[in-house]
């Protein structure tokens, strides 16, 4: 691709795909932006008019907004914590040679293929149900009072379900990173007198830092918009204890029919996601450059 001519040709050939992708992104964004400045309620058709930043004012001063923001961050942080630590441990175990390794690896990866609504329903009705659930049965067989998961620790329950879904992803990426660690380096460390724990801290963890960064960045993008698990289990409740930003916007748009307010919320969510991304890149992005 050296000459001017080939470069021009390349641009022309790429343009349909680039233009399509650009429109696909820009049209919904501009429409959302436009709606966010209108009074636009589906219950009052025909009364749309420009109202300036009023939608933003209502959304940002809604007491539910700050709870939802905190819930979103706790949900993201908690899930990341569980999946990264759990993923490292699982990857270390799966890296050892043992009988039935192939089957076990397949089983570990399986939750990733279950769709969020289904897995949330399975957790709600078969595992966490206070009467029929497996956890309740275990608690009762030890003579303990069963926990009513979604009433007593609703946000933690959601975190558990989401973490269960994302653990395979983290494990998979960390396992492949672990397998690329040079065997001679491990042997050199062994000869240098490093025990198993020192080898993990000084050799394995630094080697994994890049993969951990990738896991955190990708998961954060998806975890900011967790929705299905909340919808089928708690519906954002009790109260607003499990309402995150995504769910709050859903309530605005489809339970209160306030398209304008929901659009303003959507724009706020976009801005928040970018703030989170900015700080993440500042914090851990340097790991990717090496």
């Amino acid at each position, binding site marked *: 691709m050296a000459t001017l001519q080939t470069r021009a040709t390349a641009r022309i050939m790429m343009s349909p795909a680039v233009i399509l992708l650009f429109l696909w992104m820009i049209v919904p964004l501009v429409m959302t932006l436009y709606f966010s400045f209108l009074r636009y309620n589906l219950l009052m058709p025909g009364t749309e008019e420009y109202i300036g930043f009023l939608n933003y004012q209502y959304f940002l001063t809604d007491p539910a907004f700050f709870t939802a923001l905190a819930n979103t961050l706790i949900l993201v942080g908690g899930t990341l914590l569980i999946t990264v630590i759990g993923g490292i441990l699982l990857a270390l175990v799966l890296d050892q040679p043992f009988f039935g390794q192939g089957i076990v690896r397949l089983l570990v990866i399986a939750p990733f293929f279950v769709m969020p609504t289904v897995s949330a329903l399975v957790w709600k009705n078969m595992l966490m149900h206070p009467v029929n659930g497996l956890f309740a049965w275990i608690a009762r067989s030890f003579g303990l009072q069963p926990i009513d998961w979604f009433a007593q620790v609703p946000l933690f329950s959601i975190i558990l379900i989401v973490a269960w879904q994302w653990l395979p992803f983290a494990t998979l990426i960390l396992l492949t990173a672990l397998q690329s660690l040079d065997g001679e380096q491990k042997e050199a460390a062994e000869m*240098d007198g490093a025990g198993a724990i020192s080898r993990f801290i*000084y050799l394995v963890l630094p080697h994994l830092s890049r993969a951990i960064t990738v896991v955190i960045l990708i998961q954060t993008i998806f975890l900011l918009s967790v929705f299905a698990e909340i919808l089928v289990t708690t519906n954002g409740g009790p109260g607003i204890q499990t309402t995150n930003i995504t769910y709050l916007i859903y309530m605005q748009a489809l339970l209160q029919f306030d398209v304008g307010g929901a659009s303003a919320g959507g724009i706020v969510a976009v801005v928040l996601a970018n703030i989170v991304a900015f700080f993440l890149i500042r914090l851990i992005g340097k790991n990717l450059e090496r």
Partner: protein
Amino acid sequence: MGSITLEKVSKSFGTTSVIPEIDLEIHDGEFVVFVGPSGCGKSTLLRMIAGLEDLSGGRIIIDGKDMSSEAPAKRGLSMVFQSYALYPHMTVYGNIAFPLKMDGQEKSVIDKKVKDAAHILNLTNYLERRPGQLSGGQRQRVAIGRAIVRQPKAFLFDEPLSNLDAALRGNMRLEISDLHHQLKTTMIYVTHDQVEAMTMADKIVVLNAGRIEQVGSPMELYRNPKNVFVAGFIGSPRMNLIEGAEAAKHKVTTLGVRPEHIRISTTDGEWKGKVGVTEHLGSDTFIHTQIDGIGQVTVRTDGDFDTRHGQPIFLTPDPARLHRFGADGQVI
């Protein structure tokens, strides 16, 4: 101190025996080279001494103590790996300091030892760099630095020069020999390159298919190879091994004569033949000749000897320097 004794050491993977049974004595301060073709078990033997590979039988005694089942770190040996195995996320300083840090030594002591090692190896200006920013030769020196700071009983080198280009390899050969004279520590060096073995070793151990073929000083092996394998392996270009009618004349199965022990002439001589390919190295000329009734014979002569392809040629081997081997391949 660093004497190492191998007693009936053997290794097998499942049912395949890699090393049948080996006895070997390595004295304190010796530079021992294990040499042999690839797959002869020399690296496995080294890794067994290091403790990275379990023994299937026998004992390894280091400084009078049985270390056969000790952990690698407890044996007091250091190893330089073929891939160098430097820690990529640590600086040169961190790499060299790592074994001391694991040993729990004090910061000031570590600092002094690392600086000393860096000084010996000309790495003082590179201490803050990472391995990725160094050239092959520098990485090699860092790997050696990491090995010497522990002041081990013996150094183990696993084909350390095979990733370097030819010129650098020559330099590093000198540097490692120099280091041996400075430190006077036992060194065990594994290579498949007989030139490295000849130039560096006090004692060469020639291995073939897991067995020791011969042990001795470089010149001993050159002058008196015990069998056909050693005769063919040591020396470059390799010894001419002649079988058939010519060998029968001397009442042997195989007759060996080195290329440098043959007189070449265009007018008269014992063997008559034709010149094949000629390799001019400047100082020497290697002439590959085709001799009637014998086959290919390589001759080494001085750089000014001029020949054409296909020219008739006469060769006369030095009768005092003939090597005679019996039907079992052993010297007669």
